[in-house]
């Protein structure tokens, strides 16, 4: 009897340790703690070029993360990149002349959508679209333009 009860305790401890390990992995290691299953609303923005933007890339305003990208597709009619974003519904006071731009965090960091609020009094609603966008800066293109420009200046 004594033997089985110690055995039970050890099995209990083992299972508790395993579950504690899973909890540790879920909350301390992964993004589950920051991932709140809050209500979101959807915004769409059309970019000339969305660069290296990916699904789950952050959407931020004034440097604070307020949502994430939930889908990127190519529109074969307008040849634009359609980026669908989910924004936390507590931030539902974005003006309808908000500008969306694709920026890079640091020189080689990941790309994110930055929203810059305009001055309008009307707010963006669910399934609304952002009309003023600024495409991602492609580093190779910028360097190419710079080189081309300096070369043509030298000729003069």
């Amino acid at each position, binding site marked *: 009897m004594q033997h089985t009860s110690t*055995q*039970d305790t*050890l*099995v209990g*401890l*083992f*299972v508790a*340790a*395993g*579950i*504690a*390990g*899973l909890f*540790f*992995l*879920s909350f*301390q*290691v*992964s*993004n*589950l*703690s*920051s*991932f709140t299953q809050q209500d979101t609303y959807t915004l769409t923005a059309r970019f000339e070029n969305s660069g290296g933007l990916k699904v*789950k890339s952050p959407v931020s305003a004034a440097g604070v993360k307020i949502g994430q990208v939930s889908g990127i597709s190519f529109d074969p009619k307008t040849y634009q990149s359609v980026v669908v974003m989910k924004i936390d519904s507590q931030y539902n006071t974005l003006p309808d002349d908000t500008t969306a731009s694709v920026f890079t965090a640091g020189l080689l960091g990941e790309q994110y959508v930055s929203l810059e609020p305009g001055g309008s009094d009307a707010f963006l609603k669910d399934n609304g679209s952002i009309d003023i966008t600024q495409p991602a800066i492609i580093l190779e293109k910028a360097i190419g333009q710079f080189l081309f420009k300096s070369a043509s200046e030298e000729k003069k």
Partner: protein
Amino acid sequence: MIQLLQNLGKSTRSSFTKLGRATFFLLQTLSGILSVLLRPRLLLNQLYSVGVLSFLIITVSGLFVGMVLGLQGYYTLSDFGAEATLGVMVSASLVRELGPVVSALLFAGRAGSALTAEIGLMKATEQLSGMEMMAVDPVRRIISPRFLAGCLSMPLLAAIFSAVGIVGGQLIGSGLLGVDEGAYWSQMQASIDFQDDILNGVFKSFVFGWVTSWIALFEGYDAIPTSEGVSRATTRTVVNSAFSILGLDFILTALMFGDN
């Protein structure tokens, strides 16, 4: 020449026969699981001998694997001035690959071999046929509880392995080498996804637990009932488990993490 062909055919045929027996054995085991749930005491005893007794080796190996990852990762990453991403490197490699795979290999060596030897000896000393004589189904009574215990304890062991390893990496990284502790955890949290990384790792370890217990139990049940037969069966358990774990790991990784 004819002899060679005959032998080839014989060994091919016998390996298919064995696979067939193993599948039949698995189905029998699965059908016995329901009766295990009616007798939880049997399962508890097996959780002790399969899970609790493997706990120590898993914890200690996890700690050392994490510490080695911290050390080696630091030297590689510091060449690029990217020590802050040490946490990402340690946790991603542990949660996705090393946790499930290494703990499954250790599990096969620690618990799998013990299972095979135990059941092989039961067969050699005719305990299994004794049970059948008493109208006790040995598969339900002996095999199914062990199988279920293996499937249940493997994900727990892998989670413990990864968790201890990540703490070990942190001990070395920020305790010894001076990586910023906040950066270690925050970078990790930013890039490890709950569903894509953690749950896939748990699923992997469940599959490995399933396969390892299946191989170990079948090899024991199918062993030639002599001392030499049991020793061969134990060897086959460890070798075959290692092969299947590593092979399955490749397939599962390609399926799960293929799209990113």
